[in-house]
């Protein structure tokens, strides 16, 4: 997801407190943690090995003769180092993590357990097919769930995250266009509100971006789209559109069916960014909206953990028009019930996206999540996510300003109008949330809204947690309006680290130890 300050690097104005007052540098549970480079040494190790036999090397004279200056630690030191570091992190298991567009839902631990079963975690991607039938069957089952939930005929499992799924979809579209002799079609419509990966992907696939503005309801301005298409006339170079639905304002694109018809009539394809599919599962199927390709972030909608930045998984569902152009490899099942992996590229496939077969470790977790919920539970989860977001909307919209009126889907978007003339900005507000024990919402994204605050509670929050969160947000909004800006500017005070100097980091990059 997009980040906090959209390039607004911030430098704290004043040093608001002195360095640690304890002798140790610790603050109770918050332990000072040196770098491994400052505590370890290259000749120390936490692993016992047998002695080498002293066999002659066959390295062609290219052996490393110098010491490798990587610090080693014993096992107890290692445990301490990482446990101490872990305690400086916020996490879903600790509290509400309302990062809009990121879908920080609960990560069931059953999923961790099944992902570690040896038949999935301890198999090599190039073992003979007959020895990995269980793993292939799991991929096949996952495909079945995904294609049914989407009402789409096929899915390419390999993409390794959402943005990689975008590549997969857009390259598949390109392959189809080229196969049809439409290599001149390179224009891709991307709404201004789109996630940064969308325009970046379009360009990486050799397309160019034609930006679409939003109307005053936060959806695509249809007049502009219609005009753009008719203006092109016989110079039609439309490859397609990349549209997020629900969009990044948390709103269902209500003209989506007309959009899809317009694009198809123009000979283009409809890519849907499915990062927000968690608002639709079990209630709306992308295939019924005319979608040609859509990635699904298993690490959002289907609960695989974010792990501090990854790994993800971005299976991409494909329409009949595109499915023959899918990347390799993919799983097939023959009449006897045996599974096979098609790994060789045929003439029309878009090719290969990565080594091997994608993110098995995420497939297991996602399937476990789906089976646990079932079709009934998945639908309920969708409804609860939308209900939770609307409950926050209804409980805050008198104090904070909604970017667009009406109900929302799974996330609610506020702007910073309510902070006008208070001296507090979105960033300050977010930092004050940290002191209250909350992870801030997504800030300054989407770009179509000034000082955006995008809140996504997910279905994992209880009413009790939501009520506490709402009360806190109300308290902060009232405080800002009362003119108490000092506490906002100094926030966060209670976090292990105070506001960091991002300007310094970018101006004088120190990107590794000892540089």
């Amino acid at each position, binding site marked *: 997801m997009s980040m906090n300050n959209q390039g607004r690097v911030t430098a704290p104005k004043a040093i608001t407190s002195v360095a640690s007052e304890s002798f140790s540098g610790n603050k109770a549970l918050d332990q000072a943690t040196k770098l491994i480079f400052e505590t370890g040494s290259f000749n120390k190790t936490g692993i016992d090995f047998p002695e080498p036999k002293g066999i002659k090397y066959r390295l062609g004279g290219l052996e490393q003769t110098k010491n490798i200056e990587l610090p080693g630690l014993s096992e107890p030191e290692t445990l301490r180092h990482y446990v101490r570091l872990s305690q400086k992190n916020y996490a879903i298991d600790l509290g509400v993590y309302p990062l809009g567009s990121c879908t920080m839902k609960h990560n069931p631990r059953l999923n961790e357990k099944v992902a570690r079963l040896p038949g999935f975690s301890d198999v090599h991607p190039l073992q003979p097919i007959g020895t990995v039938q269980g793993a292939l069957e799991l991929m096949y089952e996952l495909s079945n769930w995904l294609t049914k939930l989407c009402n789409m005929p096929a899915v390419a499992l390999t993409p390794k995250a959402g943005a990689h799924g975008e590549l997969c979809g857009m390259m598949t579209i390109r392959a189809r266009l080229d196969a049809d002799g439409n290599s001149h079609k390179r224009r891709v419509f991307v709404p201004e509100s789109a996630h940064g990966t969308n325009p970046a992907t379009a360009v990486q696939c050799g397309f160019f971006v034609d930006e679409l503005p939003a109307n005053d309801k936060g959806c695509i301005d249809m007049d502009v789209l219609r005009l753009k298409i008719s203006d092109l006339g016989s110079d039609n170079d439309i490859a397609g559109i990349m549209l997020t639905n629900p969009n990044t304002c948390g709103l269902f694109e209500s003209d989506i069916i007309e959009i899809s018809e317009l694009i198809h009539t123009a000979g283009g394809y409809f890519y849907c960014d499915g990062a927000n599919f968690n608002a639709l599962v079990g209630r*709306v199927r992308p295939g019924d909206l005319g979608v040609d390709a859509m990635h699904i972030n298993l690490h959002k909608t289907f609960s695989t953990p974010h792990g501090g*930045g990854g790994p993800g998984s971005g299976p991409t569902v494909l329409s009949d028009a595109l499915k023959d152009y899918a990347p390799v490899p993919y799983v097939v099942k023959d009449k006897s019930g045996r599974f096979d992996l098609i790994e060789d590229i045929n003439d029309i496939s878009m090719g290969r996206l990565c*080594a091997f077969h994608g993110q098995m470790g995420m497939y297991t977790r996602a399937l476990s999540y789906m089976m*646990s919920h079932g079709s009934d539970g998945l639908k309920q989860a969708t409804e609860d996510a939308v209900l939770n977001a609307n409950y926050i909307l209804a409980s805050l919209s008198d104090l904070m300003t909604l970017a667009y009126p009406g109900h929302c889907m799974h996330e609610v978007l506020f702007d910073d109008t309510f902070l006008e003339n208070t001296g507090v900005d979105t960033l300050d507000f977010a930092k004050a949330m940290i002191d209250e024990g909350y992870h801030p919402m997504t800030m300054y994204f989407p770009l179509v809204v000034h000082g955006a605050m995008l809140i996504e509670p997910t279905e994992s929050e209880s009413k009790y947690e939501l009520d506490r969160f709402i009360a806190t947000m109300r308290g902060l909004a009232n405080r800002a309006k009362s003119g108490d800006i000092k506490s906002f500017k100094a926030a966060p005070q209670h976090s292990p680290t105070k506001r960091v100097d991002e300007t310094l980091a970018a101006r004088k990059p120190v990107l590794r130890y000892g540089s």
Partner: protein
Amino acid sequence: MRYLPLDNEDRAEMLEVIGVRNVEDLFGCVPKEARLSELIDLPYHQPESEVEKHMTKLSNKSISASSVPFFCGAGAYKHHVPSSVDHLIQRSEFLTAYTPYQPEISQGTLQVLFEFQSQVAILTGMEVANASMYDGSTACAEAVVMAKRVTRKHKAIIAPGLHPHYSLATDTLASSVGVDVCILEQKISSDYKVLDLIDDETACVVVQSPNVFGEIVDLTPIAEKAHLHKALLIAVFTEPVALGLIKSPGEQGADIVVGEGQGIGVGLNFGGPHVGLFACNKKHVRQMPGRICGETIDAAGNRAFVLTLSTREQHIRRDKATSNICTNSGLCCLAFSIHMSLLGGDGLRKLAILNHESASLLATRIDKIKGAKVLNNTFFNEFTVKLDKNAKDVVHSLANKNILGGVPFSRLSKAGPKDILLICATEIVDEHDIESLCKALEEELR
């Protein structure tokens, strides 16, 4: 449903606060024709025990690497990972955190990334590294695209010996942004024909060492020739453990080093998730893809870490970004970094020596088998064997005897020779495993 905290009473109260009659009203914006009225035809919810039972049943249908003599490599490697690694990466604070966008409450992840970047830079012999890519193959593809940006030239030469999947993934991405990708024919022996092809049009030359056949390539002459023509040398590796014993690519003149980090800390996982390593020199850092963590101070004057140089990235630069990557391999970086901290430099070297010794013993033994010939002059922990029979058939028969005896080269490249087998022996292989494999091979080749 055990994962959903709301009950019907909560839901009713909340609907009232919202001011709608039922949840349908919240979906009023969905066009009527797209609203589903019935449940999708999939099984209903199930208890933990049932899901676990099903998953276990599936798991049991595969043969896992630890349960048999195991000799597969070719881009993914089986090593022993210390128990503390998996224990630590399952801590909620690491596992259930997002990308560290709020540095004040993410110093755990950020310091790990800074340490990870430092480790990768040292390991590869480069000045800087990023906070990971998806895997080695996508890192390789991105490196070629980066070389085009740095040199403003369009030709990429893929030297023989690059893992065929890496070549294909690179071709997919790089050709779509107008790079002319020249993939040279696969060859086992490291011949330097590639040198003759480097010219002033060349943006980069991509060389894997140890290469897919296991052969160790001297990168220095290639780097020299590339630099003469203002081209970049992109050095690739698929087995990080090799760098415990082989001179680093940085010392051999590489401009960009990319590789697969899976061998340290990350299991086989049937091919993913793995972790892509990406390193370069400081002067090119602003063209690098992916996230980067940097050191700075906080308002109290204490050292702190933060994601930086983000003006390269998609969320700021959108269609002008260096890459579209967003989510990367975070938790695998952590696993890599913990395992590497446990090893230390000397430990890594020892692990590397043990790998090399396993492979040496195996190679010597295989060379004595009639109908099998080791083709390598050099190798680290994997090498290439020419068989008198179709390698795929041999591997299948071995599997029937519960031995996972390597990867037929034709599995990676359909057009490739059918009689070539890639065999890997890491530290987990013992003398019994070697004997089992060689006896079985002797029977097959008789």
